[in-house]
């Protein structure tokens, strides 16, 4: 059993495992090369649902023949009963907009504690479809909305209505019927705070598990709705969707800049997530025994990842080239002597010298996949109390040394270089949406969000050096009285010094910063696949492709939906 004490012992001291260095792992582009793994939140949630055999059934079906109306699922989990309430409304194609600033959606949903009666349902109906313009109470803990995939939904309905299955090639291009455009939790719009979710509803006590559950349920509803409409369209010719094709449908997701500040503003939590992943990798590299069964599994996963990547369609040239590179490198590995691996440690060292970042990180996910017994119990350690505490007694000289050691990456950035501070991150007055501005062309830099950690460290270091020269015997607390403007960054530096990972090593103020790396890092932790950058500012992806369906719950489960492949037609 893994406890906090065993984790601490594995991270530092004489019994520590050989973890990858923060300079390697926290590089922005590498973070933007991560893939889903068995420690991703969707995988963890599905394991829980399947192992605990949650009972999920429709408690209200009030849909017309076109699939519009109200639908409520009742969820009986291990510790409580919950309701997932869906409002399905007509939306014309010209009103359909995935941006945060949209005001209407095809589906709007709420995850609610307990069962809902007609009075409460009416209250939800008055507010949930309005999303940001509505208010809910603290029985609700996730709000979301989704838009139809214009290309796929009508096609799938027509196929089923005419007694045919959807063409696999077509759904390989777009593996979903709906795209979620926002999934809100953590107390937004009057909902229950995370603190309440964590303490009162143990079924959802892990980070983002309620939000991930909502996406799982939207996917299942989308499949139900498509069949429902097709059946009413032509009851005589209708055929239900083949269950293997059904499993291959996921739920689409559009993620924009809203997710990016989270990674910078929650370094303690991000440290915890990354530490668990790196600890899993270190266990595999050190303890992962290789026999014929493991070797065969590795070969099978290599083949699967190659095919999955080949089946990933994106119009983005940069991502296309990366995918081609991954396929090329994994294929080379497949046919080379390295396939007969003597140790995972040597394979990882080889990949760091010879493979692209996306291939290296895919190999990390593959290795984690091979050893559930070494990896899965780390899923219990993704939560962490987020205190950024000042160490008041630390001598200023020590503080200076900490910066020189842990933030060398920041000190190495030349902030006097043209373009090094050209980007600023801010909140727009339009729904307080996070946006990126160019300081040379746009107003608003004075209102920027404090996301330029590297630059803040540089300024802190320069002032600290002058202070240390005059007051070498002072403590950090004394320095903070003299320099209160630096309180935030000093507290962060000291807190991160107590962590293995945490701060993203990149200049987020640079003219050429690519926020999509931040988005991908967080989405990989969620467990999405099929990354499809639509610009440097937003990414489309697919969730839950290959995951069990509602009707699979209670049956056998092999937890093997990593990098799903298109079914054979």
């Amino acid at each position, binding site marked *: 059993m893994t406890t906090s004490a065993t984790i601490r012992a594995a991270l530092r001291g004489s019994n520590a495992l050989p973890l990858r260095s923060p300079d390697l792992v926290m590089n922005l582009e590498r973070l933007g090369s991560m893939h889903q793994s068995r420690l991703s939140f969707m995988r963890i949630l599905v394991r829980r649902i399947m192992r605990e055999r949650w009972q999920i059934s429709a408690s209200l079906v009030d849909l017309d023949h076109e699939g519009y109306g109200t639908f409520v699922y009742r969820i009986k989990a291990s510790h409580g009963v919950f309701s997932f309430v869906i409002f399905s409304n007509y939306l014309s194609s010209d009103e359909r907009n995935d941006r945060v600033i949209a005001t209407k959606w095809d589906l709007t949903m709420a995850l609610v504690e307990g069962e809902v009666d007609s009075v409460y349902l009416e209250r939800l109906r008055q507010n949930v479809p309005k999303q940001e313009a509505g208010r809910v109470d603290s029985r609700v803990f996730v709000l979301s909305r989704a838009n139809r995939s214009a290309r796929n939904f009508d096609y799938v309905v027509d196929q089923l209505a005419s007694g045919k299955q959807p063409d696999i090639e077509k759904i390989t291009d777009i593996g979903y019927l709906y795209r979620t455009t926002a999934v809100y939790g953590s107390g937004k719009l009057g909902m229950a*705070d995370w*603190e309440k979710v964590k303490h009162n509803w143990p079924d959802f006590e892990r980070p983002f598990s309620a939000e991930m559950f909502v996406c799982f349920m939207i996917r299942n509803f989308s499949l139900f709705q498509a069949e429902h409409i097709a059946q009413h369209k032509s009851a005589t010719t209708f055929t239900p969707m083949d269950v293997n094709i059904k499993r291959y449908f996921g739920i689409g997701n559009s993620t924009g800049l809203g997710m990016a500040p989270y990674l910078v503003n929650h370094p303690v939590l991000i440290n915890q997530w990354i530490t668990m992943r790196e600890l899993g990798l270190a266990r595999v590299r050190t303890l992962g025994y290789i026999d014929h069964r493991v070797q065969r599994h590795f070969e099978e996963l290599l083949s699967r990842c190659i095919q999955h990547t080949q089946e990933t369609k994106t119009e983005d040239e940069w991502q296309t080239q990366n995918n081609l590179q991954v396929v090329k490198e994994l294929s080379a590995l497949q046919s080379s002597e390295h396939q007969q691996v003597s140790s995972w440690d040597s394979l990882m060292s080889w990949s760091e010298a010879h493979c692209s970042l996306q291939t290296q990180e895919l190999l990390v996910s593959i290795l984690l996949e091979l050893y559930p017994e070494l990896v899965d119990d780390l899923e219990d350690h993704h939560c962490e109390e987020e205190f950024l505490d000042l160490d008041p007694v630390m001598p200023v000289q020590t503080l200076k040394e900490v910066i020189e050691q842990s933030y060398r990456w920041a000190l190495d950035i030349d902030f006097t270089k043209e373009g090094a501070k050209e980007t600023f991150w801010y909140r*727009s007055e339009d729904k307080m949406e996070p946006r990126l501005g160019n300081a040379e062309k746009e107003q608003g830099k004075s209102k920027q969000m*404090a996301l330029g950690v590297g630059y803040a460290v540089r300024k802190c270091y320069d002032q600290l050096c002058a202070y240390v020269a005059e007051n070498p015997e002072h403590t950090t607390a004394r320095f*903070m009285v003299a320099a209160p403007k630096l309180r935030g960054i000093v507290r962060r530096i000291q807190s991160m010094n107590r962590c293995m990972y945490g701060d993203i090593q990149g200049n987020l103020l640079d003219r050429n910063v690519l926020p999509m790396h931040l988005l991908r890092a967080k989405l990989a932790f969620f467990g999405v696949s099929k990354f499809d950058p639509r610009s440097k500012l937003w990414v489309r992806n697919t969730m839950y492709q290959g995951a069990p369906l509602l009707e699979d719950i209670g049956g056998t489960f092999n937890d093997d939906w990593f990098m799903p492949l298109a079914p054979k037609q």
Partner: protein
Amino acid sequence: MHISMNELKSALQRCFQASEYFVGNYEDASNMVLWLEKHGLDGLQELLNALPYIKIDSDKPLSTVIYEDKTSAVINSHGRSALNCIAAAVDLAHAKALETGIATITVHNCHNRKFILKALTDCGRRGISVVAYWKNQGSSVTEHTAAIKANARYPSYSQALTNLHTDGDDLQSLTIVCSSRVDLTSSLQNSYGNRKAYHISARQVEENKTQSVNQGIDITEALWEDINRIGAGILVENSLLSSLGAG
């Protein structure tokens, strides 16, 4: 109206950032308000008292240490709100206590001192015991004390109306005693002249928190609008150019 704790915290951060609080200070300030309210200690009422003045603090000098030795220091906060200066004073007490076992810090010219409770709580959580004592002038003088034991998560708090007369100088002062060796507790004496004294135990503070976590927070629409109106100062106007930077 009813809001979540997270909504209050986010709105307060925008409000304090728009009031030119520094990075680090605006998180502290929003946490101080939220902590008091969440634990049933009238954080929003304290904020209401502070709100008319929060923008003028940026024109005041930064706190200065006017006396210091190994076990004590005197800080002049130059009329600042505790929201943007008291955490640093508690940190100094914390550092001195770690070095010498026990330390005393006196802060002069500081407003809204009840907000110190969040900073005390942070010390307790980190194994340091702290006591704070201060007086306030309303229609009459009130006195206040709060304390937390080492490794505790919740402090106690006491308040009483008094018939004390003061010269005014000590009305904006605050005394902090901090120890890494001694567990400090405090309550106001039931002395002559004290009226309407009340004491909230650490246990009661914890129970208040449970209520807030389960139910969220009630706030008047007027105060909520004020917080958001001030916070709107950090939002950037929408334009064609700015929409190109949206994800």
